[in-house]
């Protein structure tokens, strides 16, 4: 209760600062409009179908990229984790490709795909894929040695091991991976749209900037922040649910 | 001297009141070794945390060396049950023992002596530069004890320190505690749920009732001062005392059931 009140107070203080700073001339109001004007611009945006289309495009880019990244990350991760030979062959390649910053690909995707959603989806997939893959690899490696031995003593087959041993142990990691990937994917979806110019909120920000409409720029930035908060809250809630189920099952088995 | 008078602790969270300690009064004379034993969930740890000044009592007071406890008092050391959690995993054994002395701004040479002596006393003379996680559970608890020794406390509190070590290690550590206590002349309050341990270690055993906790019994242990795992435990007097404590605890448990 108290926490919520304090948190709201924090938000109000923050908004108040943004309102007062330009008004007393701490920052030039022309380029840093007070929060009331940002709010007005936000309301204005919300009336335009173009804004909702951009929001939809960003969400679409984000979810498409995330879905591809999660599917690919899971498939590759489980495969590499389950077959040690494969991992030793691919490890160096993965270790080399992983830290390549996704922005390094921006000029490349611009040249290859132009300012399209596909260009941004490629960036999103690239950035999010590694988050998932790494977590899956950790998860697969984290199978309890005792459980692994137990499965071997009882001569469980490869599929049964995967289904009853590897998957449950890896699940929390997978969920964490998806959560991390979701936030990275959203950042890239907006960034890609901003830099590449593909349809979405980023591009709207750039258009507003190119039109000299500072309050609209801020309003759209606020929207990206809110979208991020919603994504975080949602993925965390999903994580809690999945993991609560998971620990419940575990304690049942353990007791 | 350690005085507990009219101590009462009520936890109040989310509208649920839990009375952990009802009304406790006892004193522990200087240089004595007192064991506190009680059924599980009787607020032993709460009691210890109140004495250590880590928890504010709801009513009543605790005095150490005559002065009222409101925060952790000087000259008081605690050995916690969770040895795995009370050591600094990122510090070597030596540094773990030394850290409180550093906080007390003791000169370096003096620190070195105290650390070496303490580690020697607990039988870890050759583990100075190991990390805690490189040691077994029993050895980790020895590090925690060494830290308490080096701190040179007037009062030493131990919260079920051997609950999580295996039986053989536990016997060794019990003898170690007796020895340390005799050597340092410290006032030692030892909290445990293990009746044998309480009787074997203590000069006196305080039996607590189930919560809300009160003193159910307070009996002196008139066993010979020099104790030994084989002969003491075979002593008929030991069996008798153990039986008495056991009966008290069973009674305390039975009282709780109706509520």
């Amino acid at each position: 209760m108290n926490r919520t009140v304090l948190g709201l107070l924090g938000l109000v203080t923050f908004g108040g600062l943004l309102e007062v700073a330009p008004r007393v001339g701490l920052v030039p109001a022309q380029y840093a409009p007070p929060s009331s004007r940002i709010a007005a611009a936000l309301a204005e945006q919300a009336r335009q179908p173009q804004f909702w289309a951009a929001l939809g495009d960003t969400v679409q880019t984000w979810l498409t990229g995330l879905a591809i990244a999660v599917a690919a990350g899971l498939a590759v991760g489980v495969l590499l984790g389950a077959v040690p030979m494969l991992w030793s062959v691919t490890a160096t390649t993965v270790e080399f490709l992983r830290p390549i910053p996704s922005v390094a690909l921006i000029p490349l995707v611009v040249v290859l795909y132009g300012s399209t959603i596909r260009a941004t989806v490629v960036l999103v997939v690239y950035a999010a894929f590694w988050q998932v893959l790494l977590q899956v690899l950790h998860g697969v490696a984290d199978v309890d040695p005792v459980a692994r031995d137990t499965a071997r003593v009882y001569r469980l087959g490869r599929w049964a091991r995967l289904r009853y041993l590897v998957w449950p142990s890896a699940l929390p990691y997978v969920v964490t991976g998806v959560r991390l990937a979701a936030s990275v994917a959203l950042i890239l979806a907006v960034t890609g749209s901003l830099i590449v110019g593909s349809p979405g909120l980023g591009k709207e920000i750039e258009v507003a900037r190119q039109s000299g409409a500072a309050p609209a720029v801020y309003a759209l930035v606020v929207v990206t922040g809110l979208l991020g908060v919603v994504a975080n809250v949602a993925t965390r809630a999903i994580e809690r649910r999945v993991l609560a189920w998971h620990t419940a099952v575990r304690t049942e088995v353990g007791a | 001297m350690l005085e507990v008078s009219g101590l009462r602790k009520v936890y109040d969270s989310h509208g649920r009141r839990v009375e952990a300690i009802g009304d406790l009064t006892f004193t522990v004379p200087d240089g004595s070794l007192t064991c506190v034993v009680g059924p599980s969930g009787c607020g032993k740890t709460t009691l210890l945390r109140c004495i250590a000044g880590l928890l504010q009592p709801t009513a009543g007071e605790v005095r150490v060396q005559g002065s009222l406890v409101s925060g952790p008092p000087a000259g008081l050391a605690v050995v916690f049950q969770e040895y795995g959690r009370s050591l600094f995993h990122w510090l070597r054994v030596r540094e773990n023992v030394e850290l409180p002395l550093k906080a007390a701004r003791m000169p370096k040479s003096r620190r070195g002596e105290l650390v070496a002596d303490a580690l020697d006393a607990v039988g870890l003379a050759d583990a100075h530069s190991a990390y805690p996680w490189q040691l077994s559970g029993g050895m980790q608890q020895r590090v925690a004890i060494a830290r308490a020794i080096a701190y040179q406390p007037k009062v030493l509190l131990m919260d079920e320190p051997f609950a999580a070590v295996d039986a053989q290690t536990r016997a060794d550590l019990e003898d170690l505690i007796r020895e340390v206590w005799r050597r340092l002349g410290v006032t030692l309050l030892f909290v445990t749920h293990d009746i044998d341990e309480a009787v074997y270690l203590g000069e006196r055993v305080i039996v607590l009732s189930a919560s809300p906790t009160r003193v159910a019994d307070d009996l002196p242990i008139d066993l010979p001062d020099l104790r030994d795992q084989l002969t003491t435990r075979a002593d008929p007097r030991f069996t008798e005392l153990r039986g008495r404590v056991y009966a008290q605890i069973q009674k305390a448990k039975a009282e709780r059931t109706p509520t």
Partner: protein
Amino acid sequence: MTFVRRIILAVALPITLLGLWWFASEGSTNYLWPPLSRILTAFGDTWTAERLRADVVPSLTRLAAGYGLAVIAGIALGVLIGGAPRVRAFTEPVLEFMRAIPPPVLVPIIMLVLGLGDTMKIVVIASGCVWPILLNTVEGVRGRDEVLDDTCRTYGIRGGLRVRHLVLRAASPQILTGARQALSIAIILMVISELFAAENGLGFTVMQFSRGFQIPEMWSGVFLLGLIGVALAAVYRLVEAWLLRWYHGQRLSRREW
């Protein structure tokens, strides 16, 4: 597995892939996919010592400054906020919101306030990096073991000694996780801050190649960025292994139990 065998396994795939690329692209006339041989030639011609000094060094200097600033500010604020529950409750929603804003969209705003120079770029990098470090520090500080907290209180370990030996060390695995996330963001922002307004820098140069349709040169820039990413990740791993040797040792010993 023998050493030689390990080496062979490690390099087999990269060599195969590069070989495939080399032969598949050789003789390519599609200007978007120049032959690998041309890209490699362009790499040698483009990234001369002079170019490295004029473009790569400024970029990396800004990266180091921004990242360093973020690490210091993130940890300092994180310790303050994580140690005080009321402050945490007060700032949490704002921090969550700030963290959720994709850092590149702040570039135009920071540019409005700070102009175009190195200060702007360093602040851009720092402002994007600080969130994962800050929030992870808060989590780490908050999640420290209460038994250790009690230990410090009973043994009179307070103030700077407590921050150094308890708070920071206990939070260090979390802090380093944040630092790793921040490192990726730092590289991204290093490039992006140069896309908006710059006179030199790696991102700036690569974008110039892209705008001038100098495709092999652009590819070589992408390569170099990748190499820098790999090198920084390797440095991070070394630092992490050293700072967290206790943590990894502890985890390993737990698994053996």
